[in-house]
C-alpha cells in the first residue's frame, strides 16, 4: 500500500469512527486535539490502526506520534 493510499484510507476511517469532518485532518494537525482524544479514546485509535493495517502501536512508540504525518509514517514503516 502506498503512502497516498494509506493517507486517503486512514483519514476517511478516522473521520468516520471519531465522527469529525475529514477536512480537519491534515498532515501537521495535532492528532489528540483534532480527534478529541483522551486516554480512553486513544485506545480506540490504536484499535483502528491495528484492525485496518495489522499494525500495533506499542506503548513506548505512542508518545512519538503527535501529528497525522507521524501516524502515516508509523503505519507505512510497520505495515505487513
Amino acid at each position, binding site marked *: 500500500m502506498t503512502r497516498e493510499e494509506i493517507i486517503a484510507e486512514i483519514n476517511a476511517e478516522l473521520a468516520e469512527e471519531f465522527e469529525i469532518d475529514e477536512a480537519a485532518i491534515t498532515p501537521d494537525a495535532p492528532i489528540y486535539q483534532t480527534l478529541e482524544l483522551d*486516554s480512553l479514546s486513544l485506545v480506540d*485509535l490504536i484499535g483502528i490502526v491495528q484492525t485496518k493495517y495489522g499494525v500495533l502501536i506499542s506503548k513506548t512508540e505512542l508518545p512519538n506520534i503527535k501529528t497525522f504525518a507521524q501516524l502515516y509514517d508509523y503505519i507505512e514503516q510497520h505495515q505487513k
Partner: protein
Amino acid sequence: MHDVLIIGSGLGGLECGALLAQRGLRVLVLEGSNQPGGCMQSFRRGGLHYDTGLHYVGGLAPGQAMHKAFAQLGLMDLPWQRMDEDFDHVIIGGRHFAFHQGYEAFVEGLAKDFPHQREALQSFVQRLQNITAEDMDVCAYDYLCQTFSDELLLNVVSAAAMKTELRRESLPLFNFAHTCSSYIESSWRLRGDGNLLVNKLIDTIKQAGGEVQTNSRVVRLTEDDGRITKAICADGTTYEAGYFISDIHPAVLCQLLEECPSVRKAFRRRMTSGENTCGMFTAQLCIKPDALRYFGHNVFVYDKPNVWTMTEENDPVKGVMISARVPEDGSEALRQIDLLTPMPWHECQPWTETKVGHRGEDYKDFCRRKAEQCITLAEQYIPDLRSMIETCYTSTPLTYRDYLGSPEGGAFGMRKDCRASMLSFHSVNTPLPNLLLTGQSVILPGIEGVTMTAFETCNKIIQDNAR
C-alpha cells in the same frame, strides 16, 4: 432518583451495589431476568441445589488476597470450608500429581515428581507472587516454556487453569498467574449453593437502603449534556440516577447506548469487535445416597499432556475438571459432582437459533454423548462412577448465552490478548463520565477478577464523591 443505578446483578453488579450502599449511596440494581446472581446463581432440581459458575474460591485466609475484600462485603460470614491440603489433583496420561496449599508446599509436592525442576518451580511461585500490570504484555505460554524444560511439568502446572481459557498465543501471564496464585495461598468451598453468596450481597444492599429488582431489563440509556441521565426498561419504566454501572457484556451495553452522541463509533467498535472466551460444557451429577465419599479437592483429568491445545478441538473430550459439592447435611457421603470441560462456540453452531427447552433431540443426544465422554475420563479417578449416578443435568455455552446474556456463551467474558493488552484489557471508564463498567470482561475473569474490578469501579465513584 438514585445515586447509582447498576445494570445487571451478576457478582460484579451486586458487589458494587453492596460496596456503594455501605457508603450511604442510594443504590438500585436492575436485573433483566427473573433470578439475580448471573454466574453465581444456583437452581433447584429434585430437592438439591446446583450451581452454575461457583466451584471454589482462593485466598480467603486472613491476610490473603481475597479475605479483606470478602470481609468488607460481608461474605466471610458465609460457611466457607477449607479444602484438602492437596487441593487440586492432576491426572495426565494416567500419572497422578497434586497441588498443595502454600507456595512452599506447592513446590515441595511437585518437586517430588520433578526433582530436576525444583529451581524452576521455585522461580515459578516467586513470579506468581510478584505479578504486575506489565505482565498483561507477557505471553503465559512463552513464560512457562522458558521456565520449565520438562514439558509434562509445564502441562501439570497449567492443568488446573481450566478455570480460564488457555490459549498459547494470547493468554497474558497476568491472567494465568491470577488464576493460579490465590488458590495456592488457600482454597475454599462454600457449604451451600451460590445463592447464599447472592442473597448475602442482596441483604447488604437492602439493609443499607438499596434495592434489587428482577424482571427489569434495561433496553436504553439516554444522554443529556454528556452524562447518562435515565435507564429505560422494556416495560417502559424509567429510572434516573447520578451514576450508572454496567455489569452486562460491553457489546450488549453498546446496544443500550445507540442514542448517546458522546459514544463515538470507534468506542462502540472496540467494545463490540472484541473476541469472547470459550464456554464450558457441564455435566452435573446427582450421586446415589452413600455411594461415594466426599473429597475436598478438585481433580483435573487429561488424556494426554495437551492442556494448552485441547480447547481448540475438544470433541471428543480430552480433559475434565471434577468438582465435588460439600455435603450440606454434614454427612461423609456426597450427593453432587460437577464435571466441566471447555466447549468452543463452534460446537454449538447447529443450535444457535434455538432457545432453552426447544433445541431438539439431536441436541439432547449431543449432550448425552459429551456427558458420557466426561464420565469416562472422570472414571480414571472415580472407578465405576457411571454406576453411582442417579441423575445427570447438562449445560452448554448455549445455556449460558440464554440464561445469562453472555454472547457466544463465553464463560470468562471477553478474551484478553498479551499481544494487544491495551485493546483487550478495558478501563472501567467509558466516554460518559458517569457510566462505568464492571464484571469479568473488563480486566480479569473469575470470582477474584470480578471482585477486584468491582472495587476499582466503586473507587471511581467514591473518589468522585469525595471531591
